[in-house]
């Protein structure tokens, strides 16, 4: 035991001294940091202002489009104000203003899980057009800043309004706005391709997009029950020209604004009261998601439930990353000792069993240290970054602490790590160079990809066939069961799969111990499968 600890300590302290370890340790927080910071930076500085020309030969949509784009901009202003408020609000002040009641995750309704938070906000705004209306009616930005003031921290930064993303510019000289759209688009092409520049406030700028609305656009609108005129006549309708096909926000804004306008006209034509229609459009049925497993009166699915539901996926990912990373370390560590022939001296001092145990423990410690730093830095960055996220992180932590996810993670990490490291140690003992080992590792990697691919399917049907089947395959048990943890899988499955996993792990470790013993002194080519099989047979029979 003493020797196993000595081996473990050396493996730990020596790995901790390598550059690779520190790079791995710091890279992740750096990426997280960049991930958090980059969008903010881009929002402020990076997103370029884009210039477009609008030629509306029908004369009906110009104002509406400009108005629509202004509203889109105001919506962004509103959103950025909300964000600004969140970032700079003092939690205490906000708490007082909220009647002393602390923000509670259990009270926040779960968002629609099919989309991200962004979409959630977007939908929120769509569903409550009042929010923007109210914002504009009551004085917009200045009013909001004024009302926010009491809640802001003393050292809050000054608010910076986001730049207008799309700026309409005058049609360049030499373009005849009255010509046919095909003529106009031909003359605009050099600008759109970037060959020619437009002048904006004395500076040369690239023309980002051109929107051409033909005079007879009314007649090209496709309406239900009527033949598709545009398609039949081979015309385009509104032409949106741009060499950037990735950013379609302008395209979508214009489409939405114009659709709303022609629908408004259609309602009028049908003799309907447009205000009544708007009112009707705002009618909504309330729908609550309820969980029958929760206590009576508290069945409503809350943010905490949502977290509980999805946290396992996060844990699966963490589990996967940890096992994969640590396996790689174990492999290179074993191969170093083997290719340096240090192993022989070690084996004259410690038993192969002690060596294996020491390695498993030492490398696990180094891996856990790394993952600990990753998780810690993630939380630290969250804490440093934004106010409400801290509360969120605290709540999330509370939720996790009170669930059985953390102990489950620990159990599955230990078992999964031991199982995979048994395989890795075997590979390490059979190969003399990392290059040899990569061939075997390729297979292991492919096998390990499966939990990654099923990670997001399993929570949707946590007790379904796929999830159950994977749970009973020992190499996938840790991932699949971790993934299902929130859905309270049947007890016999939890116990059964875990017992199977333990048995398999013991068997694999025992076998790999045997192969390790023979393989570790071997030089030259890795053994052929048949030879390996014979070793295993010998091991089972108790020889060697």
């Amino acid at each position, binding site marked *: 035991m003493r020797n196993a600890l000595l081996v473990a300590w050396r493996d730990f302290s020596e790995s901790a001294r390598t550059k690779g370890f520190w790079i791995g340790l710091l890279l992740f927080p750096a990426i997280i940091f960049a991930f958090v910071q980059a969008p903010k930076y881009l929002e402020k500085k990076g997103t370029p202002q884009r210039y477009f020309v609008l030629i509306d030969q029908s004369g009906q949509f110009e104002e509406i489009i400009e108005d629509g784009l202004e509203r889109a901009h105001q919506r962004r202003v509103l959103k950025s104000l909300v964000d600004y408020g969140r970032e700079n609000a003092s939690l205490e002040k906000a708490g007082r203003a909220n009647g002393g009641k602390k923000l509670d995750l259990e009270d926040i309704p779960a968002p629609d899980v099919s989309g991200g938070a962004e979409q959630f906000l977007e939908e929120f705004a769509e569903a409550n057009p009042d929010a923007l209306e109210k914002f504009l009616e009551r004085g917009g930005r200045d009013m909001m800043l004024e009302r926010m003031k009491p809640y802001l921290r003393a050292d809050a930064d000054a608010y910076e309004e986001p730049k207008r993303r799309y700026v309409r510019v005058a049609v360049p000289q030499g373009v005849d706005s009255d010509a046919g759209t095909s003529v106009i688009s031909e003359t605009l092409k050099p600008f759109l391709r970037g060959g020619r520049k437009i002048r904006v406030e004395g500076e040369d700028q690239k023309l980002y997009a051109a929107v051409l609305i033909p005079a007879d656009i009314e007649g090209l609108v496709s309406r239900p029950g009527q033949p598709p005129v545009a398609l039949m006549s081979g015309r385009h309708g509104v032409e949106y020209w741009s060499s950037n096909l990735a950013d379609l926000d302008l395209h979508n804004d214009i489409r939405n604004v114009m659709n709303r306008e022609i629908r408004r006209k259609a309602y009028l034509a049908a003799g309907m009261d447009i205000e009544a229609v708007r009112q009707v459009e705002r009618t909504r049925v309330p729908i609550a998601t309820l969980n029958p497993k929760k206590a009576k009166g508290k069945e409503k699915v809350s943010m905490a439930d949502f977290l509980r539901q999805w946290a396992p996926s996060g844990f699966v990912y963490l589990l996967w990353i940890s096992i994969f990373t640590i396996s790689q370390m174990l492999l290179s560590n074993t191969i170093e000792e083997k290719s*340096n022939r240090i192993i022989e001296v070690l084996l004259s001092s410690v038993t192969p069993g002690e060596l294996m145990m020491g390695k498993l423990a030492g490398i696990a410690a180094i891996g856990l240290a790394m993952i600990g730093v990753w998780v810690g830095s993630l939380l630290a960055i969250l804490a440093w970054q934004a106010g409400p996220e801290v509360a969120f992180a605290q709540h999330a932590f509370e939720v996790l602490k009170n669930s059985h996810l953390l102990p489950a993670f620990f159990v599955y990490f230990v078992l999964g790590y031991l199982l995979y490291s048994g395989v890795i140690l075997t590979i390490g003992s059979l190969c003399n160079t990392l290059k040899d080992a990569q061939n075997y590792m390729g297979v292991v990697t492919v096998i390990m990809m499966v939990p990654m691919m099923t990670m997001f399917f399993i929570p949707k049907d946590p007790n379904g066939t796929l999830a159950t089947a994977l749970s009973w395959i020992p190499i996938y048990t840790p991932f699949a069961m971790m993934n299902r943890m929130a859905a309270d899988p049947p007890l016999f499955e939890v116990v059964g799969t875990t017992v199977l996993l333990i048995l398999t792990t013991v068997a694999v470790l025992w076998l790999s111990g045997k192969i390790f013993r023979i393989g570790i002194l071997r030089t030259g080519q890795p053994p052929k499968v048949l030879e390996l099989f014979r070793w295993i047979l010998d091991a089972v029979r108790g020889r060697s």
Partner: protein
Amino acid sequence: MTASAPALEIENVDKRYGDFHAVRDVSLTVPAGAIYGLLGPNGAGKTTLIRMALEIIRPTSGRISVLGESSALKVRNRIGYLPEEKGLYKKMKAWSVIAYFATLKGLGRKAAKERAFELLERYGLKDFANAKTDALSKGMGQKVQMLASIAHDPEFVILDEPFSGLDPVNQEVMEEIVPDMANRKRTVIFSTHVMQHAERICDRILLMAQGRKVFDGTIAEAKRTLPRRVRIETRDSVRQLEELDDVEEVEALVGDEAEEDAPSRWELRIAEKADPQTILQECFERGIRLRSFELADPSLHEVFVRLVGSEAKEASFR
């Protein structure tokens, strides 16, 4: 264990790897305090024998006891081992490698560190104590590894090819370690295929070829396996000496009998019990004018070549 227990006892040990018979029926007793040389051509089974003695691998059949115990694992803290293929942790410092292996052999952390510095200083590596091992030259690395194998002051040391790949100066420094150990009543086994080393250092040798024991005994005994020879330098013919009972064969080494003036060198193979003095007297009586007369002691190299020469060649062509 009693003080008189042999350091190593090997009885009828066999080791097979599938169809390959690496060690065949070898028996050997290494008395405590001996310096034992393990000689033999490449592939003779020396390393396999050593690994079995240390229980790194197990024999297919036969019995091995080390320091009076049936398993080397029980007494591993009293054994030191330098394997044939040398290697060190590349990123560790010289002293910490030595200290690490010493702690694995039971020394406390602090004692191991002190011992490491002490050894490095004694064998001239003081300045490199804090160097990473991959910055050391091959010879220095090998020294460090040798020191690591004896850092816990084992009573029984097994050195597999300790001097291979070293320049003569470093070889000498390394060789010092062996008598140093012997002076403190430690047992040393070392394998080599450089006969001069064995001749200089060993009390006894085990000669192996193709997995078999070819010879086991003292150096003197080994030399006695070769017929004794007398070398004579003279212008006269010594063919006539062949008629003596003591002389088995007369062989001209250099020069031609026909050339009258040229001094020739001759080698006489003499009977085992013959007295060279008598032969010298015979020369005087027969009027042979000697320029030199010497009793040629066969070198261990000659013994080696004669005992395993054909097999060694065979092995190298396999």
